[in-house]
């Protein structure tokens, strides 16, 4: 009985994860502008990956494989937000303006003040 429950739980996690990865990938393609695409890329990296990994952990039960899956989840937790942050930071510094910039774009001289301030 328990095995059936665990099996069903892991299926749901896997399917949810797969659905979220698909949503993220679709968003990556359909979003109009670079900065709006950061969000769907984040969906796949964070929740999509976690659901799939938990689905696999439920499958693997209590073993070395589960430890490896947790490690993968932990390192993904560290690296993917960092790289998304780094990409967004580099794009902003290089002057890629968000298309519908509600906030006035940073005046260039302020950018150089940051340089001297450092």
């Amino acid at each position, binding site marked *: 009985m328990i095995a059936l429950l665990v099996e069903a739980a892991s299926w749901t996690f896997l399917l949810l994860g797969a659905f979220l990865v698909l949503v993220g990938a679709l968003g990556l393609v359909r979003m109009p502008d670079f900065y709006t695409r950061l969000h769907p890329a984040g969906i796949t990296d964070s929740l999509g990956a976690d659901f799939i990994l938990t689905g696999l952990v439920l499958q693997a039960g209590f073993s070395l494989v589960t430890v490896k899956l947790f490690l993968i989840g932990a390192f993904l937790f560290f690296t993917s937000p960092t790289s998304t942050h780094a990409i967004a930071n580099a794009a902003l*510094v290089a002057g890629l303006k968000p298309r519908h910039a509600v906030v006035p774009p940073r005046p260039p001289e302020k*950018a150089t003040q940051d340089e001297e301030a450092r």
Partner: protein
Amino acid sequence: MFAATAIALLVAMVLALVRLYAGPSLYDRVLAANSFGTKTVLLIAVMGFLTGRPDFLDIALLYALLNFIGTIAVLKFFRYRSLGDAVEEKAASRNKEASQ
């Protein structure tokens, strides 16, 4: 059930490749390549379970660790124009010219 997840991941990878080829600005390409890497990690993990040998997760673990090196190198390449120690005046002038 792993098959369904694997197929979903493959479709997601196709979409990421579409963004990689089409991406107007280079930062779209970096983002697409980075999300493609995460999907490869998941695909390798799911494939391990699909073939019944789940103890090959080391490769997925390796990618989870090393995937962001490429992204950092690309961003440093565009920020400082050299992967070594860029000299101050060159970087500062480039920022002004880049942020106009």
